């Protein structure tokens, strides 16, 4: 029984599964972006270039790791696996094959909120540990952006918990058996998607790693395996946040029950989950491709003046109406 659970955590539907979803999202993002810009995108590694993100990861992992003279060596070298651990741990709280996740407790949403905060903090730490001038500028932008999007992100995540009267992701999924929370709290879903773009540093909020302004942002000094791990973490975070949106607003893997056989029904739940996951992923990378970068001041003003009030209004409506 324990062996089975370990396999679930490390392989399917846990870590390895979400890493592959992250790679797939990376490839789809590049393909979508290329098509929208009249290019072909990756074509060489695997059919239609589908293995390009995997090839990129191993290429980076096999390159020389150069540790800058001014870097804090310990954090520079061992920060990337810690950075990766945050979304990796989050994946085991996401229900994929049915209404229950591999690991659950009555407060796992809180844990996920902590993970999101920790991811931003680790990025700040990594950038500051590197010590380069572009990293420092980027870290400043990262923290300022974080103070903008974090509050609405948390309010948007707490709204489903209030609707479900439950702080467990399993409980929130179960409460959407009849009606998805995207219908009952549409503003929270919109806020979550916008804050996700900021959390993932995607356009129009790619201010901390604006290539044309500050080279590679807080990742400028990283090379080889640490850089590969950082990029892998970004892909994994992408998959994890999309899966979180599916769980909190789109009913998770729940859908019509068509089979009495539990295995067949689990496969059906899995299919529902994947369709919803790719719909959210596609929404995020379409918005990302269609929009241009804004300035840091504009981003923070936008979050405090528009997005935070929107998230609070939705939370207020939910609490007042008592849905």
């Amino acid at each position, binding site marked *: 029984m324990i062996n089975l659970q370990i396999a679930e955590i*490390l392989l399917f539907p846990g870590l390895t599964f979400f890493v592959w979803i992250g790679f797939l999202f990376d490839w789809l993002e590049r393909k979508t972006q290329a098509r929208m810009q009249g290019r072909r995108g990756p074509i060489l590694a695997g059919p239609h270039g589908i293995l390009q993100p995997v090839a990129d990861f191993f290429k980076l992992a096999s390159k020389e790791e150069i540790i800058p003279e001014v870097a804090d060596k310990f954090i520079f070298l061992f920060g990337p696996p810690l950075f990766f651990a945050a979304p990796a741990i989050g994946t085991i709280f996401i229900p994929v094959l049915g209404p229950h996740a591999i690991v659950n407790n009555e407060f796992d949403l809180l844990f996920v909120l902590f993970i999101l905060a920790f991811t931003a903090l680790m990025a700040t730490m990594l950038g500051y540990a590197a010590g380069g001038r572009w990293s420092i500028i980027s870290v400043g932008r990262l923290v300022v952006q974080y103070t903008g999007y974090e509050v609405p992100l948390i309010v948007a995540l707490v709204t489903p918990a209030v609707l479900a009267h439950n702080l467990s992701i399993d409980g929130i999924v179960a409460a959407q058996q009849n009606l998805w929370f995207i219908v009952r709290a549409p503003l929270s879903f919109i806020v979550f998607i916008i804050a996700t773009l900021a959390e993932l540093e995607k356009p129009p909020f790619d201010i901390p790693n604006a290539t044309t302004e500050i080279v590679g942002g807080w990742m400028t000094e990283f090379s080889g395996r640490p850089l590969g791990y950082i990029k892998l973490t970004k892909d994994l975070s992408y998959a994890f946040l999309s899966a979180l949106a599916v769980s909190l607003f789109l009913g998770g893997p729940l859908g019509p029950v068509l089979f009495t056989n539990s295995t067949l029904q689990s496969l059906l739940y899995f299919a529902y989950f994947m369709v919803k996951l790719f719909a959210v992923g596609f929404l995020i990378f379409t918005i990302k491709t269609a929009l241009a970068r804004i300035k840091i001041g504009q981003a923070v003003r936008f979050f405090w003046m528009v997005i935070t009030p929107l998230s609070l209004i939705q939370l207020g409506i939910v609490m007042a109406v008592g849905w």
Partner: protein
Amino acid sequence: MVVGGPVLIVIADVIIYLLLGKLGKRSSGKGNKYQPFTGGEEDIAPRGLYQSELFVFATLFMVVEAFVLLLAGSFASPTNYYPLLFLMGGGGVILLVTWWLMIVGGVKF
């Protein structure tokens, strides 16, 4: 597995990271190769100190927000055990990390 699951993932993560380290070589030292990227300019700026109040407040905001969040989320807890655990574990980690950031940055109180 509530505690075991995350621990398992961290162990697997570190093992894979160390194994991947065998693929490429690692180098550190002094000289041009190991200087931070300067964008073609000759003078290499030293690590910036935390002189900006805004940045200090921003990091404090992160700590305070985490504490408030963890306390606010404890409304449904049947005992004091969970909120205390979250405070000690989550808040403690964030506090230590932020402290590190401030010390490395040379913050002046």
